[in-house]
């Protein structure tokens, strides 16, 4: 995580390094997360108990999974606005098709996965082969899916799916020492993270980031851009599917479940240092961003802010956080330019990043001369 700036290499002590780390935007979001968590614990000490913490991770996991899915699309330079609609569609599918019949759980799960894959392929192919901007394509699929679900269900839930299906999002393994209950959602989240980190270290993950940086160069280098991007869209709608399964269990079936998830996910991803426009960012960044965002919502629930004001405060904090990273990185980018000898070290592989080996500054503008030199 430590940027190898001249100061740190001079080696003057841990304090300076710590400050550097905190001022660095990637560090800053971690600091923000820690500050928020501390504030929550101060306001409500029982939050720190392992059981409560597990419950918190359980309920945050759908958002985190959606954010990780969105990461692959954003880092490739695209957007997936259809995620929220996919979540809604999956939740409603579960409610309508499974009903109270336990035996339908597995077949319906398979149908849901197929829906996820199909949506991803449509988004991906329309973006890559038909060359429609993904913003428009996924806006379209969002409306199509949402409209289709409303038409099919009449916009109202028939009821919650069978309890065995809901266990995935609601239940867990009981009787674990210290934790008490280990929610299945936490296990699924861990599996998703492991898979995402693994795949982002594979050639696929590196190609995705490279495409986001410069798709033309990647094409010249012989990689298959359309296939990689389509796969990114498939991963994203599969992530939305998994989130839908968890949410149907956690909360139940309702046409408003999943609404706005695409923007929550994009916010989380940006907060975690992934660059809109692609080419920079890590899975872990998206993960931390999502946790930060959700902790912020929880903190606001704990601080008894008036209900009407919450959105405004959320927005202010998100702008402040992203603006901070933007400003700090603009400054950091200038630094190596003044001492040319140190700039190559800045580009060295950062062991903590899981993607293409570059660090992941938030750059809201396209200027990344320092990195490309």
């Amino acid at each position, binding site marked *: 995580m430590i940027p190898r700036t001249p100061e740190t290499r001079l080696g003057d002590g841990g304090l300076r390094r710590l400050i550097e780390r905190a*001022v660095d935007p990637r560090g800053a979001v971690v600091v*923000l997360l820690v*500050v928020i968590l501390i*504030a929550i614990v101060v*306001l*409500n000490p*029982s*939050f720190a108990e392992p059981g*409560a913490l597990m*419950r918190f991770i359980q*309920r945050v996991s*759908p958002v985190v999974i959606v954010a990780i899915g969105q990461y692959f699309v954003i880092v490739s330079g695209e957007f997936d606005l259809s995620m929220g609609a996919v979540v809604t569609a999956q939740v409603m599918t579960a409610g309508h098709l499974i009903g109270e019949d336990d035996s339908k759980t597995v077949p319906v799960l398979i149908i849901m996965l197929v829906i996820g894959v199909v949506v991803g392929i449509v988004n991906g192919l329309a973006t890559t082969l038909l060359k429609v901007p993904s913003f428009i394509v996924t806006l379209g699929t969002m409306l199509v899916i949402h409209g289709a679900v409303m038409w099919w269900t*009449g*916009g*109202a*839930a*028939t*009821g*919650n799916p069978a309890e065995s299906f809901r266990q995935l999002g*609601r239940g867990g393994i009981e009787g674990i020492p210290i934790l008490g209950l280990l929610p299945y959602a936490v296990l699924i989240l861990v599996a998703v993270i492991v898979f995402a980190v693994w795949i982002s270290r594979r050639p696929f993950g590196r190609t995705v980031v490279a495409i986001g940086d410069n798709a033309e160069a990647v094409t010249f280098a012989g990689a298959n851009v359309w296939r990689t991007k389509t796969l990114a869209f498939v991963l994203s709608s599969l992530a939305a599917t998994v989130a839908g399964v968890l*949410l149907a269990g*956690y*909360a*139940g*079936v*309702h046409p*408003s*479940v999943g*609404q706005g998830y695409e923007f929550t996910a994009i916010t989380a991803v940006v907060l975690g240092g992934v660059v809109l426009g692609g080419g920079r960012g890590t899975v872990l960044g998206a993960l931390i961003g999502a946790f930060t965002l959700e902790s912020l*919502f*929880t*903190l*606001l*629930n*704990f*601080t*008894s*802010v*008036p*209900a*009407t*004001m*919450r959105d405004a*405060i959320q927005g*202010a*904090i998100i702008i*402040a*956080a992203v*603006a*901070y990273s933007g*400003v*700090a990185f*603009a*400054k950091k980018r200038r630094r190596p330019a003044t001492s040319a000898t140190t700039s190559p070290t800045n580009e060295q592989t950062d062991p903590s990043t899981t993607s293409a080996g570059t660090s992941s500054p938030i750059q809201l503008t396209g200027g990344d001369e320092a990195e490309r030199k």
Partner: protein
Amino acid sequence: MRRGLRSALGIASAAALIALAGCTTDPSVEPADEGDGAQEEAPAEEWFDQELYDQQLKQREVDPEGPEDKPYLQMINPKMGDTSEFKSDGGKKMCFANASISNPWRQTGWITMNEQLKELKKDGVITEMETRDAQDNDDTQIADIDYFIAEGNCDGFIISPNSTAAITPAVERACKTDKPVIVFDRGVETDCAVSFIHPIGGFAWGIDTSQFLIDNLSKGDKVVALRILPGVDVLEQRWAAADKLFGEAGIEVVDYFTEGDPAEIKKVVSDELAKGDVQGIWMDAGDGAVSAIEAFEDAGKDYPVMTGEDELSFLRKWKDTEMTALAPVYTNFQWRTPLLAAEKIFQGEEVPTEWVLPQSPITAEDLDEYLDRNKGMPDGHYAKFGGEDMAGYPQVWQDRVIP
């Protein structure tokens, strides 16, 4: 360096913002110690209307006039208006400008209204109804009404306004056609309509629900209020009345907007349970009630005293858990009344200028009866839909195909 400082300041001030917001509101959340517990700064105040509150408070106690077995034809304190000018023979075409069918309550009502239309067609008075759905949009609804006036070939108008102020001029234009106009559900700021049909209202809801919670809780207990959205008068009035009564009774109450999203509701309730015990749940509409109850189950806490709505998902969960609850009703059978009123008007019969329908909550005593009447209905169905005596019952509502 200066830039870093500036941005650090930005973060600090954002943090201060939360801290400040937390501080300033704390007193209003804590049970007020001073005096009679009146809160000095209640946000619900701007929606509070003492006159309307008193009127609805009284209307709750009134025995409605009208046929016992047909609640959709009952009326509270009616002032009858003469309709002889509209009396005419032959089949009539009604034009219905609907605000939306975007929630389960409106969908249930819309299904019932269509069944009512089928029955009326047999009598030969109302032979046709053309409907336009404004999809929750004022501009669309104004255009719909103007279309009806200009080329709808309508013999009468039924309008379920999307919002009060914005739709008023369009309703006035419809009145100028000298054809009967019937407004129902939300109101408009003109009394040019022949009849304005609505249940008692939001304050009555707020009074019934908060009184139930107050009766079943004690001073200092905590209630979480789950609200759909701010700024909608029918919802704000429910909250304004409840907030007032909770304050007077010394009940601690904290409110949240959830848009009826069960995931959001569960988060909010879980967080409140993590903070401390919650003894009551109040809702301004019942959507998502079940996930609030499940939050208590998952946290391993005792069930709260709760008010939801007459949506079947809530009634069924209430029955399963045997919790202490009340299902207030925003009378769904009012969707039958406008067409029946239109028939009366064309026959020259008197109708009330303001047709106030009964609005009585479902209590623990009624619960089994209403569950039985609505057996096999989907969870999004509303128990007091009032269509039990129609030909399509129960199949039409069980299938819940939106017409």
